[in-house]
C-alpha cells in the first residue's frame, strides 16, 4: 500500500504526471474573477469564499480522470487487482495520492489567493480549515466517479457530469463555513456537517468504488 502511494506520488512528480496542473488552474480562475467583476472591493469580499471554493472544486475535477485511467490503459490495474492488495485499499490509496498532489496544494494556496479577492481577515483561518476538511471528500468522491468511468474512451466529460452533482453538499457546507468565518459569524454547524460528509465518504465510498471497479475490469 505504501509502495503504491509512493509510486503514485513519484509518477505525479515526473514529467507529464500532472502535478501542479490543478494548482495552476485554480490560480488562473481566481485571478480572472476580479477582472470580470471589476474593481469593487466590497463585492469581491462578499463573493470571495464562494469563488475560492468553486475554483478549488473545479481544479480538483480537472485531474480526476487521471486517477485510474492511466493504470487501466497500461494494464497495471489488472495486475494490481490480482495482487495481494485489497481493491478497497487500492482505491483508498489512489484517492489519498490524488488529495496529496491536488487537494493539499489547493489548501495551501487558497490564503494567498484570498488576498487577491479582498477576503476579510477573520475569514482566512476558516477558509483553510474548510478546504482542509472538505477537499478529501472531493478526492474520494472523484475516485468513485473515476472507477465508474474507467475503461470508457474519453470518459472525462461523463466523469464530470457524474461527479459534479455529488460535489454539491461539500460545496454548500464548505463555502458556508468560509462565508460565516469571513463575516464573523459562528461557523460551527456547517463545519460539523462538512466534517460529517468527509468522514462518511471516506468510510463508505471506497467499498462502492472497489465494487464498481471489479465489475469494470471484467
Amino acid at each position, binding site marked *: 500500500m505504501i*509502495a503504491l502511494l509512493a509510486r503514485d506520488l513519484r509518477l505525479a512528480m515526473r514529467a507529464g504526471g500532472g502535478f501542479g496542473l490543478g494548482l495552476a488552474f485554480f490560480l488562473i480562475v481566481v485571478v480572472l474573477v476580479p477582472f470580470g467583476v471589476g474593481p469593487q472591493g466590497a463585492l469581491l469580499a462578499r463573493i470571495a469564499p464562494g469563488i475560492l471554493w468553486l475554483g478549488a472544486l473545479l481544479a480538483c475535477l480537472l485531474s480526476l480522470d487521471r486517477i485510474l485511467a492511466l493504470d487501466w490503459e497500461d494494464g497495471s490495474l489488472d495486475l494490481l487487482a490480482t495482487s495481494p492488495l485489497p481493491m478497497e485499499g487500492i482505491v483508498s490509496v489512489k484517492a489519498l495520492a490524488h488529495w496529496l498532489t491536488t487537494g493539499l496544494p489547493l489548501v495551501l494556496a487558497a490564503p494567498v489567493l484570498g488576498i487577491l479577492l479582498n477576503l476579510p481577515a477573520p475569514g482566512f483561518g476558516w477558509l483553510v480549515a474548510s478546504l482542509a476538511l472538505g477537499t478529501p471528500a472531493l478526492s474520494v468522491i472523484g475516485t468513485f466517479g473515476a472507477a465508474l468511468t474507467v475503461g470508457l474512451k474519453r470518459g472525462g466529460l461523463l466523469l464530470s457530469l457524474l461527479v459534479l452533482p455529488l460535489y454539491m453538499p461539500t460545496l454548500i457546507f464548505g463555502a458556508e463555513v468560509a462565508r460565516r468565518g469571513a463575516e464573523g459569524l459562528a461557523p460551527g454547524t456547517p463545519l460539523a456537517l462538512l466534517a460529517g460528509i468527509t468522514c462518511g465518504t471516506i468510510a463508505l465510498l471506497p467499498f462502492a468504488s472497489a465494487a464498481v471497479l471489479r465489475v469494470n*475490469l471484467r
Partner: protein
Amino acid sequence: MVLSVCDLSVARGGIPVLERVGLTLLPGEALVLRGPNGIGKTTMLRTVAGLQPPLAGRVEAAPESLVYAGHADGIKATLTVEENLRFWAQVFGTNDISLALAAFGLDPLAARPAGALSAGQKRRLGLARLLVTGRAIWLLDEPTVSLDADAVAMFAGVVRAHLAGGGAALIATHIDLRIPEARIFDLAPYRAAPLAADDFDGAFL
C-alpha cells in the same frame, strides 16, 4: 495439486465461449493452451486469475498462489526499469529484484526510463515481474509477443527453472516454446455451442 479447474464455463461480452473445461496442474507442470483466435484463451486465463466470474464451474487453487501476466505489461514509462520492478516486488512483499533483472538480461538497462525501451525489452521487463512476485502458478497470456528468438529461449529457460523449483504455469501461446515438460491442452473441443437465433416475435410476447 496446485490448480484445479472443474467444469468451467466462461463468457466474453455476455456470450459463452468455452464450456465445461476441466484441467489440473501439478507442481512442476506446464500446460500450453492452444486454440484458434477468439476461442477464449484470454477469457479463460482472466477467469482463472479471478478477474472475471465464471458462468459455471469452479477454480480451485491455494490462496495467494496465482500471478497473471496479460497482453499489457503494466509498465510506467516515466519510472526506470529498476523502479518498475521494485514497485511490484514491494506490492508482493518480496525484496530481491537482482535475480529477476539478471534472468531477463535487464541489468544493463536497469537505470533507463521504461518509456525508452523497445517493445521486446518492455516485454522482458513485464515477464521479469513474474519472478519478483514469488507466486507458484504463472498464468501467461501470449508471453512471447515481440520477443526475438534469443529472448524466447531466455524465457523458456526461466519457465523451466520455475517448474524445476516446484512451480507451475498455464500458458496461452501459438508458438513452440521448446519447453519439453509442457503438455499441450487443446481448447477446441470445449467451444461453446452457438446461441440459438434470436426469437424476434417471441421478444414481443
